[in-house]
């Protein structure tokens, strides 16, 4: 049996496609799953810490490469993402850049540079986090409503959990970095559960499945995600002026 390499585990942790057969192997290999969990603990431990600065020379290079492609967004973000400050801008501007690279940024009409920056970034964040929470709710609802008798196949929920891991980490990091954020525990609990669902075997016996359901109920995750989602929708509907992330 060929175990997963550390490189494959790193890709798996960050939600990027691993080698062919990696998922199947993880399903059946306790050793590789334990290795993945051990690595995840170390990387998760770094999440709440201040974002380290990359070295200035490389930050400049990064900005010079990204700026022409960002066009108007680059001008709007210049104050936030000045060379040498790439890592310090926090999750919001980084998400805008990441979203641009993923082709997901929308265009805000009729706004000056300052207005555009605020509307684009905060609007994007609200929409993106809202979508993330809706998809999270769907996974939880399906898990809660699955028939727990016999063997339970959670491969579909797992795939969707895997798809959410990357952005979930960003939102959790942002929540952890915000000292007075009342949703820190919600994000932390949901992140942990998401990872566990994604890294569990795809077929669970009824006892294993019941453990997951009990955890959802005990932590009240579904309820908390609904509350956060509801608050976000209210903020999305509120006038742009005065909106704060």
């Amino acid at each position, binding site marked *: 049996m060929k175990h997963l390499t*550390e*490189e494959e585990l*790193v*890709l798996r942790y*960050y939600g*990027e496609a691993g080698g062919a057969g990696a998922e199947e192997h993880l399903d059946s290999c306790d050793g590789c799953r334990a290795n993945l969990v*051990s*690595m995840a*603990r*170390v*990387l998760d*431990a*770094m999440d*709440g*810490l*201040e*974002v*380290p*600065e*990359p*070295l200035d*020379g*490389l*930050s400049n*290079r*990064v900005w010079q*490469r*990204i700026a022409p492609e960002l066009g108007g967004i680059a001008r709007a973000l210049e104050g936030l993402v000045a060379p040498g400050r*790439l*890592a310090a801008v926090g*999750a919001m501007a*980084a*998400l805008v*850049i*990441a979203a641009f*690279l*993923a082709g997901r940024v929308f265009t805000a009409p009729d706004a000056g540079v300052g207005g555009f920056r605020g509307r684009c970034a905060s609007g994007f964040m609200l929409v993106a986090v809202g979508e993330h929470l809706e998809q999270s709710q769907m996974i939880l609802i399906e898990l809660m409503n699955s028939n727990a008798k016999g063997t339970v196949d959670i491969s579909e929920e797992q795939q969707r959990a895997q798809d959410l891991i*990357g*952005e979930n*980490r*960003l939102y959790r*990091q942002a929540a952890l970095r915000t000292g*007075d*954020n*009342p949703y*820190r*525990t919600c994000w932390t609990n949901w992140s942990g559960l998401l990872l566990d669902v994604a890294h569990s075997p795809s077929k669970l016996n009824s006892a294993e499945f019941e453990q997951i359901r009990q955890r959802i109920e005990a932590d009240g995750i579904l309820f908390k995600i609904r509350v956060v989602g509801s608050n976000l929708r209210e903020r999305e509907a509120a006038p742009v002026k005065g909106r704060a992330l």
Partner: protein
Amino acid sequence: MAAAEDPAPDRLAFSGEVNRLLAPALDRLSPMERTAFVMRHYEGMCIEDIGRALGVHAGAAKHSVFRAVQKLRQALEPAVSSAKS
């Protein structure tokens, strides 16, 4: 509600310990490894985009992230394991 969400003292101590070990561990990374790791872990960029941003092939970006994770894991794992036990 806010008070109930405050980090527990043991969690604060754990974060402090990880933070203390992280700085020298980051210093041991090459500039490319450090930047690729920050972009992957903290900025959430995928390997392909990191390669584009740094002007290197995706394979080189991937390797930089792997090496960074490997080195950071070696440095931080003892503290994380002892906190767990």
